[in-house]
């Protein structure tokens, strides 16, 4: 490898870097700071701000011989360009000499800063960036103490320009570096903001309705080198130096983005520590330095007035507050009486430690551990998933990523970013989906299938399927067969639990047949709809088909961190029929209202634990704010119940529970909290004192997590269940088949508490092709009534010409319990 490196000296320090490295990055690796504003290591350089000017000398080449011209003493003769050059746009060359500490460079920096400051207001005392502001810091370091420009000639521009309801622009503070615009174009592919006008009148405008319509918009506030872009959440909320940082993992999808909760004491909350903002924490193998707006703004449920903080027992029909002992004794008594008829229903936001204790309790009781999920295949991803050393951020040529039945942009935003980037690096992306998604643009092959025909679409990729395949399937199959590495990612587009089970099985089977298992960069990934569904499967939980029936027959039902009654009237009815109902949650829900005993749990940012991401990376989160009232962590509550039944269970330390998990599950064999807390240096270096370089993302000092092995990578025999019966797609004369889709901003029980995101939440909207609407005498904007399991639901009609005929789409989690394709009666509202 060494011969591939380019050698140069920067301020007399010899540096060796790969070719095409930019001078500014090479200097960073040598520990030399070259100040930048417009350059960002994750964006293409543009050379707009001139802050990075340095002196560059190149060895003189003799044209005839191609050799370096040498001095008398043998050293290559250098030729310095007469002007300074921008370090951010200049790639290194062999023998280059860079000088960053000369007077000439210092003068240039000072003058560039003086010039930038001519139009910059003196807002530092109240500016939200103040204290972590690249412009402030670089001015202190390189700038002039005084300006030669006239103070009274400073531009006065609008200071309160909402680009959308989430991001505000202060026009005066913008230094026109273009980072925000370039981020939206290059990284997020949402070119919804742009420069307008020129010169001093230049301003950032939004070109979308609603304003700044991008699920990644918050990231622009991190990379903006000044306080021009601020979030509605943190605007004037606190000074950055007053905040404490608690490392955590985002809880809202299967990606598991590394984040930081910035917390501070707040008088309004009675002097409690509260979360003031969420910031990304660098993990180049998970989220790099980005997070989506759901992860950034959806934490507000933790301070919701609907938090429940005291155990409750039903007495004479009403839930009455009680003491822990009383509540737990009652639960233990009922469990002793009803023994094996316990059904535990767990939600996917619980940590591994919670789920392990829950499973132990349920298992020793002889009960049934049920996962509340409409996706399946966690047993398969544990066997043929992507093993360690797989990094979506490094996939390139030779890799095939096959995405099936997934609207990745909505289901797992950061994976969308990373898979898009992989495709741009040369990985072959094959997208199989019944309708257009935002991933199609980057796909080498896009294959459309009818809703319900996902198995047939996938079967074309089977090795034995020769025959005459039509285009584009044929070339996609060819790409697939020629690939060295294959990753298959499945989602939940138009699928119910049975369909998901069948699809996961087919994907796993295909990977096994084509030997794409057990090796890094090969395997199966599920875009789960909750943060820790993979962990729940690993801990022994799985979803079942006949949930309502099972619940109605249970002697004791133990519902943890989920709200089945609020989601589905059928499940509510089933819970009515079930025996003793124990509910453990953090907020008031419909299920809590039905409980016989309610046990108040702590939100995940109030205690420690670990999540297993969809890529099967085990990551640790830390307590950020103190728990309210009389709450306990989920694992402790379950442990106390177990102890009352005469069993030992760990109630103090999640770290010790993880050791127990490690002792029982081979994938977790070497896992412990120390390992999860390990870090190593990540490139590009970010989040340190040099905020001008990477933005305000946090450096990862609390752990990068560890990738779990799979059965295939441990070379264990696989245990693949028999193929489930292929599901039948429901089509019925006179009825319209409605298929569920997943939306990022749904009306889930946590998201609903974030006022900030309210405007963007999905509505119960039935989207269909205009022809289909015609057949039902419906038009856009009309309200229709949809009959689902005899319950009528009002839906608004929307039209989309891109959709297939004869079906309609409905988002999940918007108040209508549709989790699998279903034929429904539809009529215009009279």
């Amino acid at each position, binding site marked *: 490898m060494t011969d591939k490196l380019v050698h140069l000296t920067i301020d007399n320090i010899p540096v060796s870097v790969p070719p095409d490295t930019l001078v500014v990055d090479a200097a960073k690796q040598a520990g030399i700071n070259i100040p930048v504003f417009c350059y960002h290591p994750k964006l293409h350089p543009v050379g707009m701000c001139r802050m990075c000017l340095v002196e560059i000398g190149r060895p003189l080449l003799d044209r005839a011989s191609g050799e370096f011209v040498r001095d008398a003493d043998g050293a290559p003769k250098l030729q310095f360009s007469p002007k300074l050059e921008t370090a951010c746009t200049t790639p290194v060359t062999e023998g280059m000499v860079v000088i960053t500490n000369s007077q000439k460079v210092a003068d240039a920096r000072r003058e560039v800063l003086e010039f930038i400051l001519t139009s910059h*207001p*003196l*807002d530092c*005392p*109240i*500016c939200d960036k*103040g204290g972590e502001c690249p412009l402030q810091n670089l001015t202190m370091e390189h700038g002039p103490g*005084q300006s030669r420009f006239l*103070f*009274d000639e400073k531009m*006065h521009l*609008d*200071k*309160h320009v909402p680009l959308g309801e989430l991001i505000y622009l*202060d026009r*005066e503070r913008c230094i026109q570096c273009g980072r925000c615009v370039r981020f939206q174009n290059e990284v997020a592919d949402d070119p919804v903001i742009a420069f307008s006008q020129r010169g001093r009148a230049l301003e950032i405008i939004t070109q979308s309705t609603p304003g700044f319509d991008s699920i990644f918009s918050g990231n622009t506030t991190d990379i903006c080198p000044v306080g021009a872009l601020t979030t509605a959440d943190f*605007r*004037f*909320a*606190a*000074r950055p*130096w*007053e905040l404490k940082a608690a490392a955590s993992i985002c809880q809202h999808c299967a990606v598991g983005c590394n984040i930081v909760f910035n917390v501070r*004491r*707040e*008088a*309004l909350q009675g002097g409690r520590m509260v979360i003031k903002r969420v910031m990304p924490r660098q993990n180049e193998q998970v989220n790099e330095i980005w997070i989506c707006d759901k992860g950034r703004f959806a934490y507000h449920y933790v301070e919701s007035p609907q938090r429940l903080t005291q155990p409750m027992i039903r007495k004479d029909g009403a839930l009455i507050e009680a003491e822990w002992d009383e509540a737990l004794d009652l639960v233990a008594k009922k469990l002793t009486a009803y023994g094996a008829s316990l059904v535990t229903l767990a939600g996917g936001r619980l940590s591994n430690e919670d789920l392990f204790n829950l499973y132990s309790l349920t298992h020793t009781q002889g009960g049934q551990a049920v996962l509340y999920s409409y996706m399946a295949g966690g047993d398969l991803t544990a066997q043929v998933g992507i093993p360690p050393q797989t990094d979506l951020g490094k996939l390139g040529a030779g890799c095939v990523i096959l995405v099936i039945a997934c609207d990745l942009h909505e289901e797992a935003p950061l994976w969308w970013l990373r898979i898009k980037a992989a495709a741009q690096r040369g990985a072959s992306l094959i997208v199989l989906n019944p309708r257009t998604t935002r991933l199609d643009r980057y796909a080498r092959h896009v294959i459309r299938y009818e809703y319900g025909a996902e198995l047939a679409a996938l079967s074309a990729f089977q090795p034995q399927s020769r025959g005459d395949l039509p285009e584009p399937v044929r070339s996609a199959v060819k790409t697939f067969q020629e690939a060295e590495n294959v990753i298959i990612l499945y989602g939940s587009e138009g699928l119910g639990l049975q369909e998901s089970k069948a699809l996961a099985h087919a994907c796993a089977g295909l990977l096994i047949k084509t030997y794409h298992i057990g090796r890094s960069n090969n395997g199966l990934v599920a875009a789960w709809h909750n943060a820790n569904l993979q962990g729940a499967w690993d801990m022994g939980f799985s979803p079942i088909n006949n949930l309502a029936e099972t619940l109605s027959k249970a002697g004791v039902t133990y519902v943890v961190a989920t709200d089945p009654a609020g989601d589905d009237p059928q499940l509510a009815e089933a819970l009515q029929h079930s025996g003793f109902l124990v509910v453990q949650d953090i907020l008031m829900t419909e299920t809590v209202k039905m409980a016989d005993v309610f046990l108040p749990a702590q939100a995940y940012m109030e205690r420690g634990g670990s999540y297993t991401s969809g890529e099967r990376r085990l990551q640790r989160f830390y307590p950020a704010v103190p728990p309210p009232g009389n709450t306990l962590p989920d694992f402790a509550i379950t442990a106390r119940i177990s102890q009352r039944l005469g069993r030992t269970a760990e109630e103090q330390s999640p770290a010790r529970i993880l050791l127990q998990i490690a002792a029982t599950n081979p994938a977790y064999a070497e896992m412990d909290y120390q390992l999860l807390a390990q870090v190593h240096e990540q490139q590009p270096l970010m989040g340190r004192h040099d905020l001008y370089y990477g933005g305000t993302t946090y450096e990862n000092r609390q752990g990068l997590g560890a990738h779990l092995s799979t059965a295939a990578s441990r070379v264990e025999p696989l245990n693949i269940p028999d193929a489930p019966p292929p599901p039948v797609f429901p089509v019925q004369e006179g009825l319209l088949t409605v298929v569920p889709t997943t939306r990022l901003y749904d009306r889930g029980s946590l998201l609903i508490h974030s006022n900030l995101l309210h405007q963007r939440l999905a509505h119960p909207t039935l989207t269909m092709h205009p022809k289909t609407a015609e057949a039902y005498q419906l038009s856009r904007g009309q309200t229709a009534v949809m009959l689902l399991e005899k319950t009528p639901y009002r839906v608004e009609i929307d039209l989309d010409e891109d959709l297939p005929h004869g079906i309609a789409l409905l988002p999940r989690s918007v108040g209508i319990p549709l989790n699998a394709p279903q034929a429904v009666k539809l009529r215009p509202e009279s």
Partner: protein
Amino acid sequence: MLEGLLTTLKSMVKKPVTIEYPEQKRPVRPRFKGRHSLKRYENGLEKCIGCSLCAAACPVEAIFVESAENTDDERYSPGERYARTYEINMLRCIFCGFCEDACPTEAIVLGDNYELSFTDRAAAIYTKDMLLDPVPPGGQPTPQKTPVGMYTRSIPEMKDPL
């Protein structure tokens, strides 16, 4: 002994150096630093813009500031931001005056009031109401309703710092 008696007799006719506090109060020196007060502009708006710089400058972390955004309907200070909470713990304060130096709007000023006594720790925390000067004659109390477009600067107009 006679000498001693003489001293006593002399002091009896001398003017006493002690004064009858609290009936009588001695004026403080011009640079005396006593209890702080938060100043107002003539129109009654608060000078403090909730920037927390005083809190940052304070060597003993005696000050706690929480800020919020002004609107034209509910305006406390002429800037975009104001102090929603402003507290000084007088038990902690060492009356160094750094806060006064740090303040960009000359909002926090150490006055000449040295009469600080409390019966419990909580009483030593002076809140914004206690620190804020009364509304000057002709001014309005805060929050005020102000015309749209009147206050458009982040912080009140400042002179050229040169």
